[in-house]
């Protein structure tokens, strides 16, 4: 087996912007004094004339992006998830969401794996906030490969897109042949006893959980949901019908994220147990990302526990 590379999804974001910038000059990139961290700095270095730094003023940046989009031009704006989805929520809702403008929001440094910066910077609520905006598309890539493909797909998409990236370097799980489509989940492992539906960096943990469960004789299906909205209800309901129990795994609050989206779909159309793994309605804290993921229970072993609970709940 070849060596697995660890790369943060935000790096995939930066690389994709540079690739797109070389292919087309009809879009602008905005940042709010975090270009080095969000990785829009890669684009800034290659195409400085197409990059605008709005300074530490996220609300203004978001509405500026809306104004650019209103003139018919594409625009990518970036900040940390906390300050994009959080601080500028109402600008996203009213200036971008309501007029359904073609703005790509590249939100990096999402959730617990921000690490040392701690609770004020660890946004566990952004998916919940963005899901509540009508017409918003939300994509939470699992690795660098998917991140790059998501940026490309967002550029072709009609309507606002919230792209969620992480700070922490995570294994590249998808090869060059991986196909990404907005709104489509991907079955990564077959299984008939239970389905683990994971997003973002929890996809790799779900794949590990599949192996751990196999050794215990449990056959767990693994589905990657990168597009949290619109949710691929077909793949979710198929899992409910064929495996009779679901575990969701996300690096986000258990309130309003993937787990909620899956629960809503399943409850209304084919009720089966849905057990949610995520951040348990609590704030984050400082520490090395890997240690925090252990402490907050966002690991394969934690998925295994939830799977056993879900199977026990099956009628």
């Amino acid at each position, binding site marked *: 087996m070849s060596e697995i590379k660890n790369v943060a999804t935000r790096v995939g974001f930066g690389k994709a912007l540079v690739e797109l910038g070389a292919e087309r000059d009809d879009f*602008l990139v905005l940042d709010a004094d975090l270009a080095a961290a969000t990785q829009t700095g890669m684009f800034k270095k290659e195409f400085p004339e*197409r990059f*605008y730094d*709005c*300074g530490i*003023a996220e*609300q*203004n940046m*978001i*509405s*500026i*992006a*809306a*104004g*650019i*989009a*209103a*003139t*018919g*031009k594409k*625009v990518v704006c970036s900040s940390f998830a906390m300050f994009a989805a959080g601080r500028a929520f*109402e*600008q996203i809702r*009213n*200036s971008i969401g*309501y*007029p*359904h403008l073609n703005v790509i929001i590249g939100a990096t440094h999402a959730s617990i794996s921000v690490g040392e910066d701690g609770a004020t910077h660890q946004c566990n609520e952004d998916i919940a906030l963005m899901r509540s905006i009508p017409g918003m598309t939300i994509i939470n890539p699992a690795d660098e490969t998917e991140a790059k493909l998501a940026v490309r797909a967002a550029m072709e998409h009609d309507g606002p897109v919230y792209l969620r990236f992480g700070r922490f370097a995570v294994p590249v799980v998808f090869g060059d042949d991986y196909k990404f489509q907005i709104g489509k989940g991907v079955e990564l492992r077959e299984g008939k006893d239970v389905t683990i539906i994971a997003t973002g960096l929890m996809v790799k943990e779900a794949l590990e959980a599949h192996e751990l469960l196999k050794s215990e004789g449990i056959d767990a299906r693994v589905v990657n949901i990168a597009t949290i909205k619109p949710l691929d209800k077909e793949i979710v309901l198929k899992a409910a019908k064929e495996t009779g129990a679901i575990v969701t795994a996300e690096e986000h609050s258990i309130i309003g994220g993937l787990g909620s989206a899956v629960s809503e779909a399943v409850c209304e159309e084919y009720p089966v147990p849905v057990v949610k793994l995520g951040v348990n309605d609590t704030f984050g804290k400082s520490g090395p990302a890997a240690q925090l993921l252990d402490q907050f229970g966002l690991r394969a072993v934690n998925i295994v526990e939830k799977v056993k609970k879900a199977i026990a709940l099956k009628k």
Partner: protein
Amino acid sequence: MEASVKKELQITALKVRMGIIEGVHSAKAGHPGGSLSCADIITYLYFKHMNIDPLNPKKADRDRFVLSKGHSAPCLYAVLAERGFFKTELLKTLRKPDSILQGHPDMKHIPGVDMSTGSLGQGISCAVGMALSAKHFGDKFNVYAVLGDGELEEGQVWEAAMFAGNKGLSNLTAFIDYNNLQIDGTIEEVNSAAPIDKKFEAFKWHTIVIDGHDFDQIEAALAEAKTVDKPVAIIAKTTKGKCVSYMENAVNWHGAAPNDELYEQAMTELKAQLDELQKQGV
């Protein structure tokens, strides 16, 4: 400005004011005071200044207008109707369930509306984005915005001012509808941002102070704006409720609709002013 041109504008602005009263009365809700105060500014922009085409409201090279004080939608709608973007009868459907005329401007459904606004402070940033886009991509259009004086209390306005000044967005002109009243009282009573000319100048804007009901001064300010290499703030001193006696300088008419009796009175007053103008020779 030629006397005949000015008279024509004054007549149009009175018709716009009648449209405002018509809409707000029909809706039994809305914001007449601040709509009447900016009526002359928006009338001038759409009838004499901006490059727009009512038959082709989305034409790519049009000048853009952003009503950052979105609650003055009745004024924008009345101007657009008077200018031919849609029928004036539509004004009576303001704020009604199946009307395109939403309580605040909706760019997706209303011909001639360039930006959805209503949440104060956001419109000026959107206008800045439009001006930045035009500069970057070499488009020749200009961007105009109207802000409220109370709106200047929103921090986002100053984020927008800082960015526009630093980028030298000379294709951006923002009117401040300075009627000195906001919902809870006078600007001074609530939380004044004065001196606003000094603030905009500190953010590298050019400022011009005018009487916002004087078409000669509006015209001269816009002409001056085209000659400077900075964004321009035109601080327009206005009267809230202008031309309707009982609404003038009365804070309670910020966001209230006249009843049938007061509606009749307002329309009678406006009609009398219109007749007087039409009776006068040039």
